[in-house]
């Protein structure tokens, strides 16, 4: 593995979008996972944010995140479809070929698998004309989908080419999910992998997982689940996953450090992982790049 396989989520850093992009570039990264807030919250507006991304020369890994989309009905569904369309427009404008969607936490969502499948099929279909792929992630506090196996069940059942799975190591580590089921996932249906760890062994309740996820993540190699995290990346590599990895590290300390210091930690994490996982097959061409 090398640094070109990895990007960093902008949410990992403090400061302006330009400062974040410069820090990533400075540390040798070649791609960036954008947050929709980077565009919407830019003081000079979304067009300036997009211009900054383009000027950085960093490839856009994807855009996050569409929340609480699936399983709603009536006016709530219509509202979320509007939000989804707006985010697809943002993907298109920013050159992002991937939209990250995390599993619903809404108390208003239906618990029926068929409803989730139908809604994600619809979202994926909306994304087709724009050439955008939808990566569906199991949030570890999702109401009905909180394990990657459940997210995969939806993706597999939906059977739409541009809908795939987003694997997030944090949520797998937080729920203590076994990795063996991952081997049943078709590697070309894994669209994206987010990596992070945390510094205590267990997060027993959903609230523990939420608090840890939002404030206390660390880079791979800095936490206490290194063995399992390496096992996950080795397994993905062994399965033939050839897509992007991104560090998504929500951490209250990192957002009060200089961006360059955090980017250096990210670079160190790449080195740490590369020493433990040697990517055995680099593809000639990756889809969507």
């Amino acid at each position, binding site marked *: 593995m090398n640094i070109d396989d990895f990007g960093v989520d902008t949410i990992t850093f403090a400061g302006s979008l330009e400062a974040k992009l410069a820090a990533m570039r400075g540390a040798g990264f070649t791609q960036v996972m954008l947050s929709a807030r980077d565009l919407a919250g830019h003081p000079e507006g979304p067009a300036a944010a997009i211009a900054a991304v383009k000027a950085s020369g960093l490839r856009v890994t994807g855009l996050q995140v569409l929340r609480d989309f699936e399983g709603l009905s009536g006016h709530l569904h219509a509202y979320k479809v509007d939000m989804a*369309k707006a985010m697809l427009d943002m993907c298109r404008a920013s050159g992002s070929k991937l939209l990250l969607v995390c599993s619903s936490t809404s108390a208003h969502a239906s618990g029926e698998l068929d409803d989730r499948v139908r809604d994600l*099929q*619809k*979202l*994926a*279909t*909306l994304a*087709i*004309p724009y*050439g955008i792929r939808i990566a569906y992630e199991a949030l570890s506090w999702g109401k009905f989908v909180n394990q990657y196996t459940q997210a995969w069940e939806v993706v597999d059942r939906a059977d*739409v*080419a*541009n809908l795939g799975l987003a694997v997030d190591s944090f949520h797998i580590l937080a729920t203590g999910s076994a990795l063996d089921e991952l081997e049943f996932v078709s590697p070309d249906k894994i669209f994206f992998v987010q990596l992070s760890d945390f510094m205590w062994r267990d997060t027993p309740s959903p609230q523990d997982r939420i608090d840890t996820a939002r404030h206390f993540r660390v880079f791979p190699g800095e936490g206490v689940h290194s063995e399992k995290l390496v096992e996950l990346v080795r397994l993905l590599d062994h399965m033939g996953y050839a897509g992007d990895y991104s560090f998504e590290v929500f951490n209250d300390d990192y957002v009060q450090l200089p961006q360059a210091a955090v980017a250096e930690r990210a670079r160190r994490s790449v080195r740490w992982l590369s020493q433990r996982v040697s990517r055995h097959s680099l593809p000639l*061409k990756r*889809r*969507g790049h």
Partner: protein
Amino acid sequence: MTIREGNPESSNPLGIDGIEFVEFATSQPQALGNLLQMMGFVPVARHRSREVTLYRQGGMNLIVNAHPNALPGMASPDAVPALSAMALRVRDSAYAWQHAIDMGAWEQTPRVSAMELNIPGIHGVGDTLIYFVDRYRDFSIYDVDFVPIPGAERHPPALAGLHYFGLVQSVSADRSDDWIDFYRRLFGFSVLPEGQYFGVLPKGTLLESPCHSFYLQLIEPPPGADDIVWEESLVRIGLGTPDVLAAVRALQSRGVAFIDHKSVQPTDKGALTQVYLGGVTFELVVSHLQPPTLAAPAGAAREQRP
């Protein structure tokens, strides 16, 4: 063609029944019109208020939309004419539109369309639109917006049995599966088995309409073509004819030139015209599909009255 049995409703939820019209956008309506007339189309009516002309031959309606905003970039006088829309005949256009929206289509954004009549549409590939038309049996949508061209035959016969066979769409690398899902989920198209091709350009993926009367062909960029600018769009009309070589002769006599070299030359299976106006070609494909019934036989009968 094989004869299919079974309940057509189950595989054709929208009641798709062929192509009602295909639309070109152009800033060169005269030049494109001349080309279309060489291809056997006849200008039969003009729009009441816009620079839009209806061409027809046999069961084919073809609209030339010369409004500068018909497509992005079309205001430039030397813009290459581009396919900008296809209209599908359906059982109930409002139902078809709602079904498509519910399944994940984008409703068309307002733009200067060829029709003032409200024809529901959704986004297709690139900047193109897909319309749904349900008035094609005993009422013609063109009666509302168009005025017949004096002296023109309203229902000119098709040259050499030409009829719409399908449309060719370019897709980006590795995107065929996405577009297969698009046409399969929204309209009920199905993929023909690999190796089943028509015409002289056997490549890409062929999708058959649920009414089994026309095809979409998806073409990815050729391998090693990373330097080619390859945008997703509708690139070509396929015209079916029962006798390709007879059609080639008939068209050649009208001045149409066909590509004729080793890899692509007219055969009894198909033929490809040369590129006109910087990017317009027509493909002929052997086809024994019955040309659809004329749009307005009742209107045609009325015309014959003194």
